[in-house]
């Protein structure tokens, strides 16, 4: 759709860094009046960051923003709202014990002086409801409403503030299927009335369904911009996961040995108490890397957390080297020699406010090697940590440096050094290279391959298909909590894996 109209939002050359991670890199993004533009990308691709910049929640490090032809400098959401930009986050900002009307007028200018003018506010709300077809009882208490209805309240709240550019951050993540189609018809009526909508999502089918135009982000950059009519899910999937990794990986031919990690009929719930893993079966053998591909949100997080010991499954069993694993107990899992590389190294894996040494000894500080009667053997501990720092080439001011002073790549080296020091039989690595630069990424890949040669069985959970293809001996695809398909690394085609990822069984 060649749009002759001027964009209502023009973001040019936007760059945003968080510590050493570049969340947005030189992004140019336009939104045209009366369109639904989907911002598509994997978790961590930078979609929400970009929109939070437009909403004034973050300030960009570089770049310019124009809203309705006017250059703006947004330092808080109220600046964005006053220019007609509203954003609805995944978690709603509603007061459950108050009514719809009360929620809508909170913070908005509705009254004379210090007195509320509920009557005219109600009038205005009813007009809005009429115009946009958003039927909801203004006097209902918010806690009595369904999630879909609460979302409507959020939309009304934005409209009441005279917003005409609406950003919706993964709006379907919390909705049931029927509510999703309801939301879509609401969004269509919004644009019919002249609103412009940014729809953030990583779900291909939804994006194809609702949007007029699609902008694909990957690793903080725009990789594609397409009219929805001119593209398809398969093409979008390949944009999302990308294919520009140049790294050359040489892999020795090894024969897989005995199974070291066996997962049988594993059932687990997610944080919302919904079934996230459905009778999942997997086997990883010695000298083998099993790559587990899939679009995020299909159970990767829950599976890795079960294997890390921080989530208790509701059914099934896991065997390590033939021995049954005790669930929900990290200490027992460490003892059964599983190396664990969590997706969230900053919050789950590492203690950022402690020293590098204190992080390196976390898992074996209570082994008899490092203490006697509860007194730490500091000389042995120093030796241990210095050996690891040099073996893993960790760039740090020293073992006593505070961990948060390290760069992302070196943080991951600390993580690997700690987890691999005990020569684990099985390794579970979840997104081990996410957010890392190419050099650190190659280092991590080499280390994983070395572990494979040593004899470990490795479960590599990744949303990066290049990584999966480059490293895996076998590739399995996780879809809605179960294995959709499995193929040998050499025989697997991207097309086949892509179809499995989107839930299509050949």
């Amino acid at each position, binding site marked *: 759709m060649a749009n002759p109209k001027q964009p209502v939002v023009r973001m040019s050359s936007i760059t945003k860094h968080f510590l050493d991670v570049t969340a947005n890199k030189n992004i140019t993004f336009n939104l045209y009046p009366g369109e639904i533009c989907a911002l598509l990308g994997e978790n961590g691709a930078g979609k929400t960051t970009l929109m939070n910049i437009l909403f004034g929640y973050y300030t960009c490090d570089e770049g310019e923003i124009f809203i309705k032809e006017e250059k703006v400098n947004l330092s808080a959401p109220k600046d964005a709202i006053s220019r007609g930009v509203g954003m609805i986050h995944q978690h709603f900002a509603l007061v459950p014990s108050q009514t719809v009307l009360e929620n809508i007028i909170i913070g908005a200018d509705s009254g004379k002086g210090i007195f509320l003018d509920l009557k005219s506010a109600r009038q205005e709300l009813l007009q809005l409801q009429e115009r946009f077809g958003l039927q909801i009882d203004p006097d209902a208490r918010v806690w009595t409403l369904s999630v879909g209805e609460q979302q409507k309240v959020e939309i009304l709240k934005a409209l009441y503030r005279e917003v005409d550019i609406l950003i919706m951050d993964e709006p379907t993540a919390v909705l049931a299927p029927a509510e999703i189609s309801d939301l879509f018809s609401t969004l269509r009526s919004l644009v019919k009335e002249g609103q412009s909508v940014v729809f953030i999502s990583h779900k291909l089918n939804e994006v194809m369904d609702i949007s007029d135009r699609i902008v694909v982000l990957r690793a903080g950059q725009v990789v594609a911009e397409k009219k929805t009519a001119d593209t398809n899910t398969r093409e979008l999937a390949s944009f999302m996961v990308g294919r520009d990794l140049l790294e050359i990986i040489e892999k020795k031919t090894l024969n897989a040995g005995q199974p070291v990690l066996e997962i049988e009929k594993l059932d687990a719930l997610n944080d919302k108490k919904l079934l996230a893993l459905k009778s999942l079966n997997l086997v990883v053998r010695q000298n083998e890397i099993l790559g587990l591909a899939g679009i995020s949100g299909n159970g990767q997080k829950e599976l890795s957390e079960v294997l890390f010991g921080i989530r208790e499954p509701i059914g099934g069993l896991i065997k390590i080297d033939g021995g049954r694993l005790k669930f929900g107990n990290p200490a027992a899992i460490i003892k059964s020699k599983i190396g664990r590389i969590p997706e969230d190294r900053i919050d789950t894996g590492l*203690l950022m406010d402690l020293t590098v040494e204190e992080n390196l000894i976390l898992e074996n500080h209570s082994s008899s090697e490092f203490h006697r009667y509860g007194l730490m053997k500091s000389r042995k501990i120093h030796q241990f940590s210095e050996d690891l720092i040099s073996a893993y080439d960790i760039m740090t001011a020293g073992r006593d440096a505070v961990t948060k002073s390290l760069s992302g790549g070196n943080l991951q080296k600390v993580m690997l050094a700690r987890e691999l020091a005990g020569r684990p039989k099985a390794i579970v690595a979840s997104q081990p290279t996410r957010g890392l630069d190419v050099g650190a990424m190659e280092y991590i890949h080499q280390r994983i391959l070395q572990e494979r040669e040593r004899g470990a069985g490795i479960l590599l959970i990744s949303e990066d298909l290049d990584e999966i293809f480059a490293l895996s001996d076998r590739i399995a695809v996780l879809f809605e909590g179960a294995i959709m398909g499995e193929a040998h690394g050499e025989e697997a085609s991207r097309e086949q894996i892509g179809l499995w990822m989107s839930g299509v069984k050949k």
Partner: protein
Amino acid sequence: MIGFRIVKREPLPGWAKVVIPIAAIIVTLILSAIPILIAGGHLWKSYYYLFYGALGTRFNLLETFVKASPLLLTGLAVAFAFRAKFWNIGAEGQLLAGALTATALGVSLGGVPQPLVLPIVIIAGFVAGGIWASIPALLKTKLKVDDVVSTLLLNYVMIHIMGALLFGPLQQPGSSWPRSSAIIKAASYPILLVRSRFHMGILLSFLAVFVIWFINKKTTFGYQSKAVGVNVRAAHFGGINTTAVILWTALISGGLAGLAGVGELCAIQYRLIMDISPGYGYSGIVIAMLGNLHPVGVLFSSLFFSVIIVGAQTMSRMTGVPTYIAEVIQGMALMVMLIFLLFTEYRIRVVRK
């Protein structure tokens, strides 16, 4: 237009940990001039008598140590708990639990061999404080009950338990006041220096500084407790039994506060009265913050507090400024320290719009 924004700053070097509390104390004393002047006091004279009253004579100096002892113990109690992010606001109740237990044993252990009485009283007081603190720790780890609220509210529970006992089984026979009988001689702390109240409990509290420093620095438990405080999720991931760590931290923390109660009972009052503690448990929170949760820092901040409390008596006598000024200074010290601590992590950036 110029605006201000608070942004995170780079970690400060090690010396800042020493300089900041000292700077906070200086700023506090400067700010305290305002209420002193409002109260009509002569500024230099007031400060002179404040410090003279606390440090100027042998007796006053020793009194400052006497006063510092419970403050030091409750300060350590709070600091040790806060380091593990167990928000123990309940040192006051734990102190009372210790004093109550010491009373119950102190009036009734007449039949026990004399040298055993005091050790039994001390250990029991420690355990009582610890158990009282472990209740909110259990509620926190098992039922996710907020520890700030539960530790605070349990203070009032303990005050009322104490009241009930002082009007009931522990009340001195024949008395109509809520007070217990005096404890036996064998249960009281020996006085170590003549013509003073300098008692053995003061040495115990200094010993506690070393013990806590040692636990923090040298033991696996100290390491675990710190890890839990820094990031309980990552500590759990790393195989630390976080429930046990929080529970033991609470036991030790409450035990220290209980010791403060034992000291007040067995060296100062010799019998339990309702106002055995003028809020030592709450002062402990301020002292722990001012001491940056470090045992040596707590030692110095408790000494500072007791200088203010003891000195305020003399200052009041000589200049007419009410002794309440001591509490104003204490409160001010907390505010200043909290603001200073904020700026160790954040700085203000000026932005031009």
